[in-house]
């Protein structure tokens, strides 16, 4: 009996009461205050903060040196002051954030593989250049990056800070566009492409989420609102600036198409091609009777005055040559994610 009592005392001392401990390296972790999004709908994805490592020292190859991509792999492209860089999804799937610079801009290319959304964020926070990391948390199954300057948490699709010292502030974004590797090679053969020398050994030949990209019935985490007007994983361009939110499905564009539309009183121009796998959106400044241009990438459209527009919105020929169309705040992603974040989002229809 004495032995049994000893064992019971031992286990009680060893176990104590149920508890959870957090020992953050950032002192503000436990004092960050309220979330601006419902905290019960934020999920711990499993790997933990920075458990999915961002790439903070990206290295690049020339297009003709790249041998790890297939033609259908998607690329996120950034064009700024004549410098062109490509960030392949097969690397973004594993790292989700690339902290990089082009010329005078420092940006974090944030990509969420579960919502298929990629957005480039300004890395100047409160006047300080910083980097972004993967918090390991998800809201509406979407990435929540954190900035390493203030340890504030940001919602990728909402484009604002949802927790921490900067809660409520909006993030400044830079224009990007998404297309396939096949199209990218034709459009920007002299560009630089993020290579697999990321500092981490990962199998970049393998997509880490099985059939997730194409299985419309498969979500890994709940979303606050299920919008089933389009298939969940249908790729759309979501326009998220201003009051009106509108989605343009890749299925609208076929071989190629130019859509002249208006949003919040501003004329906009949507150019896309399902076969070349891209949709881009710009404010329409004095261009009329636009038509799609085939087989002359990166030129994708031309107006009746001969102004020729590239995928990044540069006008490279015509009376307005040398000017740049103003991009509309937009990014590609799976439809369900826009439906969850922007309940009732308009879907463009002919």
């Amino acid at each position: 009996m004495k032995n049994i009592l000893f064992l019971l005392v031992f286990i009680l001392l060893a176990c104590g009461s149920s508890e959870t401990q957090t020992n953050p390296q950032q002192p503000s972790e436990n004092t960050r205050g309220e979330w601006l999004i419902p905290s019960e709908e934020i999920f711990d994805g499993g790997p933990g903060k920075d458990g999915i490592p961002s790439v903070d020292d990206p290295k690049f190859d020339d297009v003709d040196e790249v041998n790890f991509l297939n033609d259908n792999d998607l690329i996120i492209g950034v064009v700024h002051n004549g410098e062109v860089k490509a960030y392949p999804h097969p690397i973004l799937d594993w790292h989700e954030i690339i902290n990089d610079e082009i010329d005078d801009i420092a940006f974090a290319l944030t990509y969420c593989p579960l919502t298929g959304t990629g957005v480039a964020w300004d890395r100047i926070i409160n006047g300080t250049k910083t980097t972004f990391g993967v918090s390991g948390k998800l809201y509406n199954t979407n990435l929540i990056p954190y900035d390493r300057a203030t340890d504030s948490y940001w919602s990728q699709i909402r484009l604002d800070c949802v927790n921490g010292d900067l809660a409520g502030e909006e993030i400044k974004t830079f224009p990007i566009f998404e297309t396939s590797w096949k199209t990218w090679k034709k459009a920007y053969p002299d560009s630089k492409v993020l290579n697999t020398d990321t500092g981490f050994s990962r199998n970049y030949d393998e997509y880490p989420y099985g059939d997730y990209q194409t299985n419309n019935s498969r979500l890994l985490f709940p979303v606050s609102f299920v919008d089933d007007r389009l298939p969940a994983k249908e790729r759309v361009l979501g326009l998220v600036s201003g009051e009106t939110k509108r989605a343009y499905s890749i299925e609208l564009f076929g071989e190629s198409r130019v859509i002249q539309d208006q949003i919040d009183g501003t004329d906009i121009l949507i150019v896309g091609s399902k076969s070349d796998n891209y949709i881009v959106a710009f404010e329409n400044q004095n261009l009329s009777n636009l038509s799609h241009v085939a087989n002359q990438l990166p030129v994708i459209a031309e107006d009746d005055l001969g102004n020729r527009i590239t995928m990044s919105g540069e006008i490279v020929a015509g009376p307005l040559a040398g000017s740049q169309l103003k991009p509309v705040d937009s990014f590609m992603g799976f439809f369900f994610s826009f439906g969850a974040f922007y309940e009732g989002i308009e879907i463009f229809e002919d």
Partner: protein
Amino acid sequence: MVYRLLTILMFQGIAIHMQAQTCCSAGVPISTFMEIASSEKNSFSIQLNHEYRSINWLVDNNTRLENDPRSRYGQNTSLKFDYSLNSKWAFSALIPFVHHSRNTTSESQNSFGLGDLGLLMQYNVLSKSLYSLNVVAGIDLPIGNTSHRGSSQILLSPDMQSGSGSMDFLVGTSYAKTDFLLPFLSHFVIANYRWNGTNDSFGSTANFNGRSFAFGDEFMVVTGFRYMHTLSAGFLIPDAGVRIRWQDPNSEQGADAPNSGGRWLSLPFGLSFVPDKSKSIRLYTELPIYQNLNGLQITTNFTVGIQFIYTRNRT
């Protein structure tokens, strides 16, 4: 007397994995031991077990990768009670306390609490002086804590919880033969299968229905040898074996979760000291030798543990 003791000790310390997701760390159950209870009529035993599991190998399918910013470990302290009603039937109950730790370059998260209650019953099909065959069936009752929260008060992931929130079932069988090739050498084989239930309300609140999660079902076979060496002050019993484990992918929202499940091959070793029939102490370790996992996972690189058993026979 020696053979009778050998029969009793034959399975001691050989994991039957009654414990499952309550002790999961990154999809790997901590092998809280649920060995076959003594077949002595009216015997009662109490067992205290403590196990430490290091989970620091990053494996992509069957390839080990470097530069993982994560590290994990799990500790499990459990109290187990066995009661043998007669020479055929025995019953066990297991109360685990589970500690999970997850560390990255940016934060350290820990959870500690009560795990799920394991209940097991055993039927002795065959028991002769040199052979023994048992079948077991068990259930895990979801009494463990599934509400551990981490930084910013966000609910930790299911594999960081000490409880599962689901009811799970296990069936298994074990066979052993003593005097296998050599006197006092025994050979054993244990196999079991467990169905892991689904927690359909993980993280639910008054305003939120929560999410659906289930750990993958699991099949395990372990086989090995034990040898009873007689000392002047009792018995020394080394054991060694091989364990093969298959686990289905976890389920998230009703669909297979990526980067979970797979196959593992490991080598368990142990050394027991038995001063007399009523007490024993065992040290053990388990080392992985091969994995073939679904996708990228962090997985166990070693396990160590210690076990105390006190047995009282009322007859």
